[in-house]
């Protein structure tokens, strides 16, 4: 009797979860399917048979490819910068006593909790006040500013289980601070740094709202999509989105299978 009840409960759980997964993947399925749709009439939705045309047409859409190139370039630059700044900061905050430490710790939460639109308009305001022309530079700076806290949190999580005495041992054995940092501290922190960098990269690629305010004439891939949604997105955008999705799936599998994150290894 009890076993039967358990089984029924389990089945309800499975049905419920399947429905949630369907909900999560439905719009993605629509985008992927439409990338193979042979229709040539706006709004490119009625099914006219299978084609791979949009994938070859994609290479002629220079504006779209350029926006995608911008997105990748901004993501790479902002990831490198925020990873360096964030890792140094996490180590410094953890190791040294200095005035204003509490303030820095508190300020780090601002970009995390305040709605993105407020961060976006605030950055727009300072760039316009400081006469910094909006474009690649302002995009990279903005992306660094919202990803740095996440890098710091990731590295800090790694530091909390970190034994300071190995650094002391290294210095006692004659290595200076810089050698110790590169030879001892960095390798220990590597999984946290990699996790933080990955997060910074995905945050940058996904960002719509903040980029929307600080981009000037420079278009990123999401902004290009946003621009064309009202007029009907051409299916080569679906094709590019499908390719990006494939990249995402690979990335998720690599990271979640525990190659990068030390968290899973420990368990």
């Amino acid at each position, binding site marked *: 009797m009890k076993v039967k009840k358990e089984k029924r409960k389990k089945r309800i759980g499975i049905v*419920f*979860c399947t429905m*949630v997964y369907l*909900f*999560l993947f*439905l*719009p*993605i*399925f*629509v*985008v992927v399917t*439409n990338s193979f749709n042979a229709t040539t009439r706006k*709004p490119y*939705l009625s099914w006219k048979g299978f084609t791979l045309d949009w994938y070859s047409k994609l290479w002629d859409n220079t504006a779209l490819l350029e926006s995608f190139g911008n997105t990748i370039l901004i993501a790479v630059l902002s990831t490198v910068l925020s990873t*360096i*700044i*964030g890792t*140094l*900061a996490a*180590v*410094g905050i953890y*190791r*040294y006593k*200095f005035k204003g430490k509490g303030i*820095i710790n508190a300020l780090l*939460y*601002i970009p*995390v*909790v*305040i*709605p*993105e*639109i*407020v961060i976006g*308009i*605030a*950055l727009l*305001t*300072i760039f316009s*006040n400081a006469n910094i022309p909006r474009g690649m530079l302002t995009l990279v*700076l903005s992306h*660094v*500013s919202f990803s740095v*806290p*996440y890098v*710091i*949190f990731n590295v800090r999580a790694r530091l909390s289980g970190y034994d300071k005495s190995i650094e002391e041992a290294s210095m006692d054995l004659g290595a200076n601070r810089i050698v110790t940092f590169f030879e001892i501290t960095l390798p220990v922190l590597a999984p946290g740094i990699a996790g933080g960098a990955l997060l910074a990269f995905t945050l940058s690629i*996904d960002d*719509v*709202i903040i980029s929307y305010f600080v981009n000037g004439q420079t278009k990123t891939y*999401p902004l290009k*999509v946003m621009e064309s949604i009202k007029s009907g997105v051409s299916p080569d955008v679906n094709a590019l*989105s499908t390719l*990006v*999705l494939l990249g*995402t799936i690979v*990335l*998720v599998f690599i990271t*979640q*299978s525990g190659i990068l994150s030390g968290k899973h290894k420990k368990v």
Partner: protein
Amino acid sequence: MSKISKHEFKSNTMPAIVTVGPVAVLLVFLVVVPLILVAVMSFCQTDEYYNVVHKFTAENYRKLVSADYLKIYGQSLLIAFFTTVLCVLIGYPFSYVIARTKSKKKKLLYMLVIIPFWTNSLIRIYGWRSFLGNTGWLNSILMSLHIIDEPISFLYKTGTTVLGMVYCFIPFMVLPLYTAIEKLDGSLLEASSDLGAKPIRTLFEVIIPLTASGIFSGCIMVFIPCLGYFFVSNILGGGNTDMIGNLIERQFKSANNWPLGAALSIILILVTLLLVKCYQKAGGDMDNLGV
């Protein structure tokens, strides 16, 4: 004693500046100063060319309490509230099942949540638009099955905006809940049922209280950003389901009234501070916010 600490401080000043200096500069110039400028600008006027003039006025704040705006605040709170409630109602049982899965499938199930989460939100919202539009999939399917003769307009309704918001934010609810539920000690549940508690009682007196921190942080991470996600209501709601985010966006783009937009942003900042304070009062840990 003081001499030693002074020496220690001195020898640590350089490395502290080198390591923490860059982030301090970044936080000052890209977080603190910009937010102060927004606060100052909210009291400024504009000239006839829509330029911001640094002349004091409280006019922007007076405009904030106009009937039209009050209606939109109400609408924003309502949409954010329903989004949060639905995220809990769907996200909780969902996270529970995944987190309590014992087999190897658990990792795969978790990855299947991360994949849409890492796919661009704009692309996914655009997918919903293709699905729900008048010429979209759902209408085509329903019409070809002769369930309906005319397309139903699903878009531009409050419910559709809520759907889009739930869709965007459900991972933000599921991930903290998953962590909280995974930590739950299974033996407590057994103890509860051995002592004669019905499953429903175990749920309300053991499971939910022990995972309350996850629910709290999930709610904060859904409710606050939801107020500012203007593109969801733009794309799925047309102009019909404007939220405070849409008002701000318009002031900084088409309407070109930055001071008014700044004043509107101050409301969002205050709401955020208030909710985060409540969260901390309730014992919430700041480190549980964020991805």
